[in-house]
């Protein structure tokens, strides 16, 4: 190989390596754009909102004057709606996941259920709002209540819980089941004593991610007809006159954190925008904490479980 060809080859290798290096830099820049957005979003809310966050903000009702307004009814509403959502979505989702993994025969019915679960995960959240409006509000007559909102969000996060349950169950080795069956256990005994306990951490991860999504959902709740100005609290759960009064809180009108924030964001006065930032900051903090917890849990799980 003469000197000239060697030189040309070196140049080519050099330019290929440069492209390689350049793409590495491009990758980091792209990641930085995503991460900087995250930082900018967080910082922007903190700068505008932190000044408004104090005990009064958490314990006051919304008001026509921005300085007196607070998020009491919003966060109480969010907590109550989440309570209904969790009560409905967790048992249903786990049961469906267990059925699909441990019971379901391989037939067309199972195929239909599986296709439906994966399809529902891709349905836009506002469609769930329209479903709730037609079904819960007008057909079942549940009204624009905490119960309606909670059930709507439960349907929305059901696919998340089902998929997480199935993944957690699938990672349990077959030997565990075979051992239990060999001892004469029924399917339900295997599920109750082995499958569900061993997959509980994985299920919990999915439930937390689902709840974090539900707490920030705005569109379906607006469609259902949550009010944006609520200056009272629903009766505290399970404190009314038994038996009927116990469930009064389920039928109360309500507002939730994201709706309160939306309401303040759509007002022209700057003071209300600061309120929106403060409410948004608390909301972001809540979802970040929940998602962070789920990620940490999954990380611990991957590290610690060795079958």
């Amino acid at each position, binding site marked *: 190989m003469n000197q000239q060809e060697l030189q040309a080859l070196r140049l080519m290798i050099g330019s290929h390596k440069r492209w390689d290096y350049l793409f590495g830099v491009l990758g980091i820049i792209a990641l930085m754009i995503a991460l900087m957005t995250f930082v900018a*979003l967080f910082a922007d809310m903190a700068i505008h909102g932190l000044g408004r966050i104090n005990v009064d903000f958490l314990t006051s009702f919304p008001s026509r004057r921005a300085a007196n307004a607070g998020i009491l009814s919003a966060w109480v509403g969010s907590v109550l709606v989440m309570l209904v959502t969790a009560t409905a979505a967790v048992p249903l989702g786990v049961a469906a996941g267990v059925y699909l993994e441990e019971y379901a025969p391989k037939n067309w019915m199972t195929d239909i*259920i599986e296709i439906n679960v994966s399809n529902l995960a891709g349905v836009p959240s506002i469609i769930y709002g329209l479903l709730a409006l037609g079904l819960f509000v007008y057909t079942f007559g549940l009204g624009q209540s905490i119960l309606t909102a909670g059930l709507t969000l439960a349907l929305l996060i059901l696919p998340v819980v089902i998929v997480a349950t199935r993944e957690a169950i699938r990672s349990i080795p077959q030997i565990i089941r075979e051992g239990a069956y060999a001892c004469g256990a029924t399917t339900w005994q295997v599920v109750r004593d082995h499958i569900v306990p061993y997959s509980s951490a994985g299920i919990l991860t999915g439930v937390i991610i689902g709840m974090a999504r539900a707490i920030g959902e705005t569109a379906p709740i607006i469609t259902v007809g949550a009010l944006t100005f609520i200056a009272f609290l629903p009766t505290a759960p399970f404190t009314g006159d038994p038996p009927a009064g116990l469930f009064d809180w389920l039928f109360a009108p309500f507002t939730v954190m994201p709706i309160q924030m939306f309401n303040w964001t759509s007002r022209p006065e700057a003071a209300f925008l600061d309120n929106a930032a403060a409410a948004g900051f608390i909301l972001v903090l809540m979802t970040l904490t929940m998602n962070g917890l789920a990620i940490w849990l999954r990380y611990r799980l991957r590290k610690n479980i060795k079958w």
Partner: protein
Amino acid sequence: MNTYAATAGKLDRMSQPSERLQKDFTRHLKERVIEAMLFLAAFVSVFTTTAIVYILISESWVFFQHVPLTDFLFDTQWTPLFDDAHYGIMVLLSGTITSSLVAVLVAIPLGTIIAIYLSEFAPFAVREVAKPFLELLGGIPTIIYGYFALLFLTPLLQKIYPDLPGFNLLSAGIVMGIMIIPYVASLSEDAMRAVPMALREGSYAMGATRLQTALRVVVPSAISGIASAYILGISRAVGETMILAVAGGMQPNLTFNPAEPGATITSFIVQVALGDLPHGSIGYQTIFAAGLTLMLLTLAFNLIGYYMRKKYREAY
């Protein structure tokens, strides 16, 4: 099972069932009841889909009895709340298409670069930190992104482009794109990681660099998975509501210019839901017709994505 039944049958004929067999009977009954209950829980998903389709179609039926389908599809005005009512879904569709296009132009290049970087270039430690971070980014409520688009990005863009109105599809679209980066990146990365190592090693053995291997071996091998990630990303953009309701403005506007305000299918539904139209009025029923259009749109995207994912699974 058969031998068990035969034995049980024989025992039945011989004498009264023993205590153990009675216990077995209740045991089986209990199993059956539990299985049926679990099946019902799984069936909720089928029920939900059926209910969505039923509600959207039956409520839209009322709407389409007053408005002919040709008007709905081809009219160029959308003024359902005015006296002189026009119902041209094209107007809302143009807003949805424009904002989704902006989002896709942001999310697909950035998401693909991030996916290639994380799958082929990044050291282990970077990947372990970046993936959860992206996941957190995807978990932020969309109302927060809406606030960010309206009060952070729009003023920023107005410094570069002073004529930009306060409500516009551009900043909503860009923020929407950033919102769907995590979906596109993580699904594409999964597809690339599923490419067998041997293909990469073959490429490296021929003297290819990492970039050459990534672009000419890994990406083509994972292309159906990557395409399905894109399509799911688009479907998210089309169904996104709050960012557009907050930052896009809600005036119906037949335009494909992202620098203008405009209403989308989703933000129109929010607008009507916030108002006080009575249920059953034609203005109110429009949201179900709009919802039906949206549902058909995302269903088409999801089916294409599902088909592609299935195809890609069979590749290896």
